[in-house]
């Protein structure tokens, strides 16, 4: 059995408008993380990660017995330096002097050492599916390779000139011009849709029954990862094939039917293509009632961190029996929540994530532990 025994999360809830960008847009961010960036001694994603790297938890992990792995889910890999596309120097622009630490495996080596991962330290760059994609690795390592514990850090450098330019230019995020037209962040809605980029990170510990110290938060039942037949590496098929394949794999390997799933934590970017793709996938997979929610409109799209971070935020919310709604929905239906919903029993959750480059991930968690 694989238990999610501990986690720490951080996510910004404050937005600012970055009107100096080539594609003006809002973003969820922690302005204080950029303080003193001009010294060249500040690397923002590491400052962000420090907020979930609880010193006491790391110390405790180093002292625990068992074969331990560490995975850095770094999403689209780290970015550092000045954006050649930026129209002018922005409040985000900086150059970091300690280049080796921007290499994801080098950084993973430092953090892995700090959590006692003497048996494997590795990284994953499966774009925005990254932290949920590594749930498959967690299952593999703990089921077939004798690992007792896997620690996962999901963090990415989301708020920088390059990311805001790229997402703005590609029309993936909600830019200021769309906001001016009255569009608000939402998902699975005819009128509103889309997301802002956001800063967030998650550190999670998965352990088996042999090394349990504390009461687990949830069980990780199974996970799946897949790509779809496509000629567009950054698009999504309208029929949701990638989501279906990943979810079907997770369901099959966990010997779970969709009838047992009560909540879907969607990827939920709220873009037209994701709405279509993910909705089609869920229609194909489910033949019994379920509810679905999305967090990207609440905390922004934290990219590589998003899948696992949002799952942990849902687990937090479920402690109070509440499934958060998807903000700014103008439609009412029985599946995609427009209002928060109270639930009485402890549910099984299907979490979904997708990443540019044709990668889809699914993981099933059981909150009854």
């Amino acid at each position: 059995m694989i238990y999610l025994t501990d986690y720490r999360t951080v996510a910004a809830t404050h937005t600012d408008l970055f009107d100096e960008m080539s594609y003006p847009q809002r973003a969820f961010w922690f302005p204080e993380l950029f303080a003193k960036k001009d010294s060249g001694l500040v690397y923002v994603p590491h400052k962000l990660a420090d907020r979930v790297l609880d010193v006491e938890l790391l110390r405790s992990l180093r002292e625990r017995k068992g074969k331990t792995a560490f995975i850095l889910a770094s999403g689209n890999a780290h970015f550092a330096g000045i954006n050649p596309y930026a129209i002018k120097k922005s409040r985000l622009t900086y150059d970091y002097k300690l280049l080796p630490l921007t290499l994801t495996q080098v950084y993973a080596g430092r953090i892995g050492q700090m959590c006692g991962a003497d048996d494997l330290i590795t990284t994953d760059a499966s774009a925005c599916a990254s932290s949920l994609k590594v749930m498959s690795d967690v299952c593999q390592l703990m089921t077939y390779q004798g690992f007792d514990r896997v620690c996962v850090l999901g963090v990415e450098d989301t708020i920088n000139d390059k990311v805001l330019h790229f997402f703005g230019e590609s029309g993936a995020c909600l830019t200021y011009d769309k906001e001016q037209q009255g569009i608000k962040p939402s998902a699975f809605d005819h009128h509103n849709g889309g997301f802002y980029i956001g800063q967030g990170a998650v550190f999670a510990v998965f352990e088996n029954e042999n090394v349990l110290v504390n009461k687990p938060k949830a069980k990780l039942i199974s996970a799946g990862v897949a790509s779809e037949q496509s000629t567009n590496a950054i698009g999504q098929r309208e029929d949701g094939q990638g989501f279906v394949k990943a979810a079907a794999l997770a369901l099959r390997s966990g010997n779970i039917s969709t009838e047992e799933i009560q909540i879907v934590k969607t990827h939920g970017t709220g873009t037209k293509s994701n709405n279509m793709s993910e909705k089609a996938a869920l229609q194909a997979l489910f033949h019994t009632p379920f509810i679905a929610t999305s967090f990207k409109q609440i905390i922004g799209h934290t990219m590589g961190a998003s899948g696992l971070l949002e799952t942990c935020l849902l687990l937090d919310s479920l402690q109070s029996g509440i499934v958060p709604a998807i903000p700014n929905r103008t439609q009412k239906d029985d599946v995609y929540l427009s209002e928060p919903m109270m639930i009485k029993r402890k549910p099984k959750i299907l979490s979904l994530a997708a990443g540019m480059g044709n990668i889809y991930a699914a993981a099933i968690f059981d909150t009854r532990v």
Partner: protein
Amino acid sequence: MTDQELLLIMNGIVKVARPVSADELKIESLDTLIKDTGLDSLDFLMVGVYLSDIYGVSEEDVKLMKLTEESTIRDVFEFMFKHSTQTPKTVEEALENVK
């Protein structure tokens, strides 16, 4: 500055360079061998960059620093003093920019 003040600067930098295990890496003496500090090569790269920032040592000059198995924390400070273009008056001033 006294040895004690220089140690405060060094430990302040270590805390920033390695925040999640800084408590376990307290340096007690300037005569501690670098290899005995518990800092790895990357940590020490960070420490060097922070110190050069504090003392205004150029990147070209920093590259001249040659450390051996016998090098101590004091050796590192002496290198910084030799190539410095600025000198902080207090520990707080020194650490102001690396926090």
